[in-house]
Every structure is written in structure tokens, then in C-alpha cells.
């Protein structure tokens, strides 16, 4: 019952809506009168001529006016992204590069430190001196 009443009122509202929509429009006679306004075509011609000139001569101006806004914006974006990339790469711990110190353990204390502290390769004389000294120790 209520549904029936609702549907009737709904139909009625839709009908009223159509009447309102149709009431809002201009009649053909009124539209004709407005369309017959004097100098309407002359005004259109003038605007076409004006816009045509703008399209021909104002192309570079239009490009410039766009560039004036776009270039600073792009520069800001570039600077911002550069700064952000610097910030993030600076915070990241660098992967340890190959270091002779780490490999040889020169930072450690003890015998290894003495043996491997020397970064440069041993010379022949040094090798010979080491052999001789060890032979001497054995000879004693």
C-alpha cells in the first residue's frame, strides 16, 4: 500500500520534473528573434579574425607564456629530486669495498698483525734475511 503510494508520488514528481524542464526552455519564436540579432555574424567574423591573428602571431608568445611557468617548476622538481637522492644515498651504509686492511686483518692485534701489517710485498732481500735469520736460530 505504502509502496503503491510511493510509486504514485514518484511518478507524479517525475511528471512535475518534466513539466519544469520543458517550462525552462525558450520557444522557437524567441530563439529566432535572438538568432536574428543585428551584427551577430559581424561579431563572429571579428572574433575569428582576432583569434586567427593570435594563432598565427601569438604561437611563440603562447609557448613562452607556458615555458615561463613550466621551466621554473621543472627546475624546482629537479633540484628537489637531486636533494632527495643525495639525502637517501648519504644515509645508506655503503657496502664495504674490498680493503686490504680488512682482508689481511691489520686492525687486529697479535701475531697476524705483525705478519700481515706490511701492505707492500716483501722484497727478495727481506725474504733472504728472514731465511738466514731462521737458519741461524736453528743452528744455535
Amino acid at each position: 500500500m505504502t509502496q503503491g503510494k510511493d510509486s504514485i508520488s514518484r511518478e507524479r514528481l517525475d511528471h512535475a520534473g518534466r513539466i519544469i524542464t520543458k517550462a525552462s526552455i525558450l520557444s522557437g519564436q524567441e530563439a529566432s528573434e535572438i538568432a536574428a540579432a543585428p551584427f551577430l555574424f559581424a561579431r563572429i567574423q571579428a572574433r575569428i579574425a582576432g583569434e586567427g591573428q593570435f594563432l598565427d602571431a601569438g604561437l611563440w608568445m603562447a609557448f613562452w607564456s607556458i615555458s615561463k611557468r613550466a621551466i621554473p617548476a621543472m627546475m624546482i622538481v629537479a633540484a628537489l629530486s637531486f636533494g632527495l637522492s643525495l639525502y637517501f644515498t648519504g644515509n645508506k651504509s655503503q657496502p664495504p669495498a674490498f680493503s686490504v686492511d680488512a682482508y689481511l686483518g691489520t686492525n687486529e692485534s697479535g701475531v697476524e698483525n705483525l705478519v700481515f701489517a706490511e701492505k707492500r710485498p716483501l722484497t727478495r732481500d727481506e725474504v733472504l734475511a728472514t731465511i738466514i735469520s731462521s737458519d741461524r736460530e736453528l743452528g744455535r
Partner: protein
Amino acid sequence: MEPTHDPSNESSDADLVTEVVKGDATSFEQLFERHRQRVALIAGRFFQHSPQIEEIVQETFIKAYFGLANFSQSKANSFAHWLARIAFNNCYDELRRQSRSRKWMLTDFVEVERQQLRSLTGDVGATTLESTTINRDLAHKLLRLLSAEDRLVLVLLDVEGLSVAEIAQLMGWSLPKVKIRAFRARTDLRRLLKKFL
């Protein structure tokens, strides 16, 4: 825009378009004479003041002039249909501009107008509804409360008598969009009218 020759009055729209693209201003004037009333009528579906309608007519023909080269290449529809599409789109843009510039409220209605709307929507019998006259200003005032899309769809459905498919083709919208928009437009208008009951 120097006239090159005077084409006969029996020239078709397509012939006149070709001449305009070649640079003949008189052909464009002929196109204007043929179609200005229809464009004004379309503008009159949405606006009631002559300066607004004249502006829509001007905008429509200016856009048509600069788009004629593309139209003559595409050969998709008739010139009248293409021009109507430009006109409806111009009206739609103008409605959107207006809705952005000012938000209309129910409080804008004076008591006499409320009474008139109440008589239209109240339970006074279907026969009297047909005979009820409603002031155009009041109708405009009420329809301004709807969104631009709602208003456009309602006019295309109820005044122009177009089908959903035709509206979709005219406005370049998808079928579901038109259906949803039509449903929402009717619901919104119904809700609006209920407030006056």
C-alpha cells in the same frame, strides 16, 4: 577571409564546408544563416537571457570555423549534427562555469515560488497537473540547483526526446554513463521537488 566566389543557395552543407576550408567567407555566412536558429534554440534550452544565448551562438560558430578542416576530412556526420554537438558542449561548459561561480540554495526561493512549486508537486490530481503553468524564471531557478550534467541529460531526454544511445553519441559519453547520469538526474530532481511538498 576574402570571398572568392558566390556559391549558389542550393549548395549542400558539405559543399559550403569545402568552400569555407578553401577560404570563402560567404560560404561560412551561408552556413551561419542556415544553422543559427537551431544553435540559438539549443542555447535556449539552457539559458534564458539573450546575451548568454548570443554568446553561445558566437562560440559555437567560432569553434566550428576553426574545426571545419578536421570535419571536412572526417566526413563522419552531417554538418548540422556536428554543429549541434559543439553547441551542446558549449552549453554544458557554460553550465559548469555557472555552477562553479555560484551555489544556489533552497533559501533563494520566495514564498510565492514555493507555493507555486507546492501546487505543482502536491496531490491535486493528475488532470490539473497538465494545466498547471509554471513561470520560466522559476523553472530556471529550480534547475540551477541541479548539476550541469543532470540538467543536460534531463533536457536531452525530456525536451530533445533523445534516446540514451543518441545522447551517448552526441556527448561522446559511454552508454552506462548516460544511464547512470539519467537515473541520478531524475532522483535528484525528485528529491528537490519533495522538499517543496
